């Protein structure tokens, strides 16, 4: 085993050498020493088998045929209409010579033959319950399928998890994990690790009680379920739970940090991203906002919402937890991605996770212990003063506290945070993290609300608008070691697409009005625009790159505007009411004139 590992490592370093031998490597400024966790980021194989590319969640393709000097010649190779016109947030998945994509509700899964120019091999129609559309907060999206061991795994909006045969598209098993009558939906892409299919629920706006569920990948049987609120036995907190901060130690804090019974409808849903460290056997994921949004109705820290959990993948037992936003007052869900890196911190190599938090702080957390090593703002924040590293607690700003009977103005970042779900990419080549995010502030009013099962449980009204500078989107290249921006691009519209980093030092992302952009990844480049093309509809999906059956490098992305930010176009909503789409519409009034609803996959390559 050890010998095998050593060979693997040698292969890896060989790959790194090969990479640095490319003519463009010399242009990258001095590397900062950050690299993805080795056990979670195997050598490049030209595929893209899970939305995050690997367990470290780098969203980096080592392929470098497409590079800074030739990317301007990219041309579409084929496109494919997916058959829906709602928000397309998923990443296309590439295994061998087949691409797999999933649409928003009704969650069609398409298998496309890349050896035959993208010709469909099969389509799987899972027929989710139509009523699930009515309890899907913020459009009927799906964030992707994942591949493991000859099977494609995905979840439908109405809370079913499917395993289907990757070759034939035949169903192997189906497991019902969510209940739409309680407002539970599932929008996230599952992660498969150690024969466990991990999937969590959505519905933080419906008083749902959040959970993460692990199913046996072979049979679909329940392995464990860990709730985000309630008594320790439900949260899977036991003797192995060793949180770093004293405030997180104690019995049944998931009950005691709520007013009586509040935890039963307390949110903390899990609808974002999971990373996995195969060496520590720990999974990492964030929990969503507490319910209702109105903080006056839930005094206390509202554990274990709006924080990050480390859990044993086999048993689900919690190892540590860190609450980035205790007693969340602004819908600052903490479901964003965590990128597992090994990097120098104060001169010493540490095994860390880097998290661009909803609340606007770029967290560097020791992934073995849960200690916050640094937390620096990467966007404009006035809702908290900073993070006290001794206690891990954010320092509150009393005048931004929402209170019934008044409207609290200019809270930054707004409810979708400084960054929402759309994931960042990390390039081991430049050592930078590429963060697509937003710059919005909001006015907020709260009022008492009552819980009615299957209806929104909010008690708050919000109105969003552009933050300082007037640009609603930002694309930031962040140096996690130096703890500052290398460069940043201002975007007019909020960025709701993921980022893709590549070995050719080209970074890709899309805008909500349909521009697919390639920019120079290098630290000193200021993100120079290298190429852009206008697609059918706005882009809110996750671009990927792969090696095709012909050996060429391809870049794929889906266009189809929607999601919370784009529902004004895909629903469509009425822009005269600023509170539409939970207040997001106020910031998006110009979008209907700039793009239209759609649903199309685009695949690009260099001309032969």
């Amino acid at each position: 085993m050890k010998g095998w590992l050593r060979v693997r490592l040698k292969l890896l370093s060989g790959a790194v050498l090969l990479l640095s031998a490319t003519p463009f490597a010399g242009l990258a400024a001095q590397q900062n020493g950050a690299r993805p966790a080795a056990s979670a980021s195997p050598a490049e194989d030209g595929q893209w088998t899970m939305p995050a590319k690997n367990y470290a969640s780098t969203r980096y393709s080592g392929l470098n045929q497409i590079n800074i000097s030739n990317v301007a010649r990219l041309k579409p190779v084929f496109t494919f209409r997916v058959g829906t016109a709602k928000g397309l947030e998923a990443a296309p998945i590439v295994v061998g010579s087949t691409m797999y994509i999933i649409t928003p509700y009704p969650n069609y899964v398409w298998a496309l033959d890349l050896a035959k120019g993208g010709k469909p091999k099969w389509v799987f129609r899972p027929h989710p319950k139509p009523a699930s559309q009515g309890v899907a907060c913020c459009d009927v999206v799906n964030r992707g399928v994942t591949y493991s061991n000859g099977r494609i795994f995905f979840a439908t909006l109405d809370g079913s998890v499917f395993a289907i045969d990757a070759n034939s598209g035949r169903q192997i098993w189906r497991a019902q994990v969510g209940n739409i009558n309680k407002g539970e939906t599932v929008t996230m892409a599952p992660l498969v690790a150690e024969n466990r299919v991990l999937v969590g629920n959505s519905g933080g706006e419906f008083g749902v009680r959040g959970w993460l569920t692990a199913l046996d990948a072979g049979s679909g049987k329940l392995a464990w379920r860990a709730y985000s609120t309630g008594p320790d036995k439900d949260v899977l907190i036991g003797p192995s739970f060793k949180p770093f901060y004293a405030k997180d130690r104690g019995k049944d804090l998931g009950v005691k940090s709520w007013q009586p019974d509040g935890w039963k409808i307390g949110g903390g849903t899990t609808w974002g991203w999971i990373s996995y460290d195969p060496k520590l056997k720990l999974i990492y994921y964030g929990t969503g906002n507490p319910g209702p949004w109105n903080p006056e109705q839930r005094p206390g820290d509202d554990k274990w919402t709006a924080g990050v959990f480390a859990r044993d993948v086999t048993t689900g037992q919690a190892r540590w937890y860190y609450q980035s936003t205790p007693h969340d007052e602004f819908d600052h869900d903490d479901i964003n991605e965590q990128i597992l890196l090994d990097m120098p911190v104060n001169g010493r190599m540490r095994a860390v996770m880097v998290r661009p938090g909803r609340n606007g702080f770029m967290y560097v957390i020791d992934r073995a212990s849960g200690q916050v090593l640094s937390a620096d703002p990467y966007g404009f924040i006035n809702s908290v003063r900073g993070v006290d590293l001794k206690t891990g607690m954010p320092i509150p700003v009393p005048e931004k506290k929402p209170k019934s009977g008044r409207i609290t103005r200019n809270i930054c970042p707004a409810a979708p945070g400084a960054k929402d779900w759309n994931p960042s990419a990390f390039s081991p080549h430049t050592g930078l993290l590429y963060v697509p995010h937003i710059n919005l502030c909001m006015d907020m009013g709260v009022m008492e609300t009552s819980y009615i099962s299957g209806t929104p449980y909010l008690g708050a009204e919000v109105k969003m608008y552009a933050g300082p500078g007037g640009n609603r989107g930002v694309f930031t290249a962040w140096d996690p070691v130096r703890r500052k921006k290398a460069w940043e691009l201002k975007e007019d519209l909020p960025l709701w697409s993921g980022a893709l980093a590549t070995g050719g030092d080209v970074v890709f992302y899309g805008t909500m009005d349909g521009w697919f952009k390639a920019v120079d990844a290098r630290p000193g480049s200021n993100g120079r625009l290298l190429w852009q093309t206008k697609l059918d509809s706005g882009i809110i999906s996750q671009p990927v790159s792969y090696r095709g059956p012909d050996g060429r490098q391809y870049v794929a992305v889906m266009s189809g505007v929607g999601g919370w930010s784009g529902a004004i176009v895909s629903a469509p909503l009425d822009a005269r009411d600023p509170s539409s789409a939970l207040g997001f519409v106020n910031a998006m009034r110009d979008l209907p004139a700039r793009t239209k609803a759609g649903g199309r996959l685009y695949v690009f390559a260099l001309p032969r």
Partner: protein
Amino acid sequence: MSSRSRASLALLVLVLAGCDREERNARGAPLPETGPAQQAALAATHSDPRAKQYENVSFQISQGQRLYSWMNCVGCHAHGGGGMGPPLMDEKWRYGGRMEDIVATIQKGRPNGMPAFEHKLTEQQAWQLAAYVRSLSAQPRQDVLSGRADEMSNTEPQTLDERKPVKDAAGSEPKGPVK
């Protein structure tokens, strides 16, 4: 009565009884939710005099506005602009825009996610709520509309809004009595 006529009467009764035996109810009564009886009941409400009484009275509309908030309608439909649910301030009505249609939608729910509220609201409250929903697109008489918006986000008062024609989802105006 002679014994003869008595005998023929008995025979007649027997013959008629035989006819009755051949009459069978092959399909059973339709379920009340889907059957013609229910359709007839719905059709009857199209001329329901309550429609005008509720939607042309300020008090009923403002009661409806309170219910709109209390029943969490705001979470999905916002203040008419929509979100998880469709907008209510425009001229498109997927399931009909008449008072009776809206009352049916509130009470029974709709297949694409609108929950049923019939066990959570009284009939009177459903009518009040429907009256408020119609006021979001300025359907009632101008002099009964609210002169200011209640909510923090400050939509324009409905009195400044023009009355929209009531159309179905395809954008055509349905036939039959509208007001």
